């Protein structure tokens, strides 16, 4: 279940070219997260091994950041911005609507493993409020119809859906 050979080699090269292995810690964790679906305990061990760090040292970093998931998440992580402009524009209703549509509460994953809903702080798209990110891709301004069509789009194109690298 480890990272595929070519990806490992690429990361190893990046590590060698960096000032110190730790500099690549986030890149390594992102790559492993993508491979394993989330940053599992196994991923943490693998990251530690690649970087010459201990699992504790990886955990110190992994649990600090918003976009590293130490618990299982769906294939598509929906981040709903809840900072003041998006909030003013209906973030709570967006959250509600998503929860009702997907039948999960924020923090949970749908039974088919497709979607997870999480709050996120201002993503820098305030001129398109309210905004959500799906696997890092921004969508906004949101209306119920827009949400419906976005989710449908994803479901239809699921295996081929172009993910942000």
């Amino acid at each position, binding site marked *: 279940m480890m990272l595929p050979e070519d990806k490992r080699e690429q990361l190893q090269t990046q590590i060698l070219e960096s000032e110190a292995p730790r500099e690549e810690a986030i890149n390594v964790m992102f790559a492993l997260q993508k491979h394993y679906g989330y940053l599992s305990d196994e991923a*943490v061990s693998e990251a530690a091994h690649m970087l010459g*760090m*201990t*699992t*504790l*040292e990886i*955990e*110190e970093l992994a*649990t*600090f950041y918003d976009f590293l998931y130490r618990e299982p998440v769906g294939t598509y992580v929906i981040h709903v911005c809840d900072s003041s402009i998006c909030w003013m524009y209906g973030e709570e209703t967006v959250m509600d609507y998503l929860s009702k549509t997907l039948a999960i509460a924020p923090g949970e994953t749908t039974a088919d493993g497709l979607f997870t809903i999480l709050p996120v702080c201002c993503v820098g798209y305030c001129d398109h409020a309210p905004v959500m990110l799906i696997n890092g891709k921004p969508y906004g301004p949101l209306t119920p119809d827009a949400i419906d069509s976005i989710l449908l789009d994803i479901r239809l194109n699921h295996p081929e859906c172009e993910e942000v690298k």
Partner: protein
Amino acid sequence: MPNLIIDEREIEVPKGTKVIAAAERLGIMIPRFCYHEALGSVGACRLCAVKFIEGHRKGIDMSCMVEAKDDMVVSTTHPEAVAFRKFIIECLMLNHPHDCPVCDEGGQCLLQDETVSGGHGRRRYPEKKRTYEDQDLGPFVQHEMNRCIHCFRCRRFYQDFAGYRDLGVMQIGHREYFGRFESGRLESPFSGNLIDVCPTGVYTDKPSRFKGRRWNFERGPSLCLHCSLGCNTTGNARYREMVSLEARNNKAVNGHFICDRGRFGFDFANHVDRPRTARVDKKPVTWQEGVETAARRLRHIDGQKVLCLGSERCSLEAQWSLKQMCRNLDWPNPHFFVEPEIQRKVTTAVGLLDETLAISMGELENSDFILALGVDPINEAPMLALAMRQAHRRGSTIAVVDPRPVSLPFSFSHLAVTPDHMDLCAQVLVQKAFDPRSAGNLSDEAAHVFASLPNTYTPNPDLQGRLKDLGQKLGESLKPVVVCGTDMVRPHTPGLAAHMVRFLREKVDGARLFHVLPGPNAFGAGMLTSPEEPGSVLEILETGNIEALILVEQDPFWSYPDRERLEHALKKVEFLLVLDYLPSMAVEKVQVVLPTCSHFERSSASFINHEGRLQRTSPIHRGGTPISQVSGGKHPPRTFLDHIPGGDAKAAHEVLAELYGAVSGEKEGALLNGLQDWLAEKDAPLKGLSHQKDGIRVVPEGVLEDVVFSWRKSETIPQKKGLELLLTHWTFGTEQLSAHSRPARKGERAPKLMMHPEDARRLKLADKDRIALSLDRGEVVVELEIAPNMAPGVIILPRHRKLQWQKLKEWPVMVQDDGIRKTEGPK
């Protein structure tokens, strides 16, 4: 020296002193959490806020971060500062469980103190408290995270100061969690210091959990006796039982910390089988009877046929009294070492050490090059590793010449060579430190030495390059230290080390010598052993001329490598007398036992550490059988006595005095006379044997001009066939006192035979194979551990209490390939 005013009081402090430390000198304890003298200032907790009126940006700033400057004016009582500190302490208490009644830190809790000092009372926070799940951190340290105030001290100690990487801070903001990646035993052998360093009850002493609060205990200053470093401790006793130890600050020796062996090894004093009463032929008798029986037997034996054997763990008072007694009774001089090689190494080391060469562990932290010769610090004397790490953090280069798989919490150069090669290695390194062109500046003697130093490490040219680089570093250093062990090295090595340092001093007068000796008072034993003394106790016993053997706090069965020979030799002795506090094997086998006190009980005792520092312990409690053992767990006991059960034991020097009186008929007492004068002779400015805060060095002053180089020209190293068996110490399980301690035993790992992968390949052995090792006196069955960072050509066995390893007939011993075989059988 800056002169500043704090709260209208003036004080002058050394340059670089922070305001918080300057205030301490005035007796003003500015509230603080994250600041710690050993861990430095980071400015995280914000509690040490004071108002700066002059000499700094006007307003509130953190006293731990600001350096004292001339004409600075500071107020700790300004309303702004007081209000801010009150806010901070209120913030820190928002999530605190307020569980003082069930917290072991209660009564010695910095958080309690600062809460009161900050004037915080009622909780006005309307939300719920955040809570955590605790982890199991192993047998030594209890984890209760709800009490955490996020001062970061534990992480800074564990990672920055001590260099271990399995405990840290996770999560963010007020969810931050201090712990391991997952539950599991803390890897650091210094983990117990978390207990001292944590200002709240997050980390508490697990073995002594719930046994009492600070105010329940009898407390006193003590010393750790589990190696020769002489770290300072504070002991806690309750109900006649030693409950726990804490580190005691001694800047010159151990700083603020101690190792886990020292912290948890004290429980030998509570051992259920400790000899508590005098015994004659294995039957308990009254004290008087015991002394009388022994004296009677001794009176009837020709003085020349009495042999006395002390040890490296006897107090100086006991060692001195023993020597005086033998002199007064016309008995042969006492021995303090069973093995002649060890005697030779220690007496050489002690004899050649003087004030110009000695260096304390505290001073070692400032050295810029450390050459460790035949030392495995983590296993032999753990705090040495911590001191070396501080030197490393300050930029020091560290080289370790030792065959064992030495591991240290910092990067160092490991030259893994066999014991026969260690001296050559060290000499080449020293040779490389000197530029031959400047040899002309050396004195004649030194120049001659330089000429005879080998310049190539012939056995392994690969090592030559490394030695050259290290030698260059040594040549550039200003404060190099040679750390020389007395366990793994050959008998002449301590002498070589002393002369190497003398030689280095020709170039740089900051060069120093640091020995690791085999016991807490090996130094005293070495000073009291006459150089002409024939070494081998066993040979003396085997002549059959000895009719009485007196063992004073010595158990040869534990450490003597040839038990069979020992037992045979003892059979030739008619009368065996043991004075000890340990339930040793010797105690089981002798005619008369007179129990002694441990250093926690009854009277003060002095011990001299590796650098010749004389330090004293104070008794923690009166002594006697712990109440929990007297009453079978019921408390309080229901019987009323007019004496303390098991309270017969006296300090070894007191027992000797009584014995002397009984044998000679003279007034008891006089044995300690002359000790003070003798110490004063050693150039120590003693004012009586009163307790000195940091201890005093009792080594001669040393005059450089009188130095005589006794250089052993390097010989060809004999080629030996087979694998040399090396016996070694481990942090837990091999040192006798801590091996009798229940909490320390929990720190042990199973004994292993260590072997280099090359040798294992040749013998077709794999990691975790069960091995039967054939020695002269029998087999030792043990699991194999492959260690790539040890020297090839040797196998290493710990002197573990779980192994019957004392089966050697001679040593060093070479084991041939057919003596190592895989086995399936049970141990």
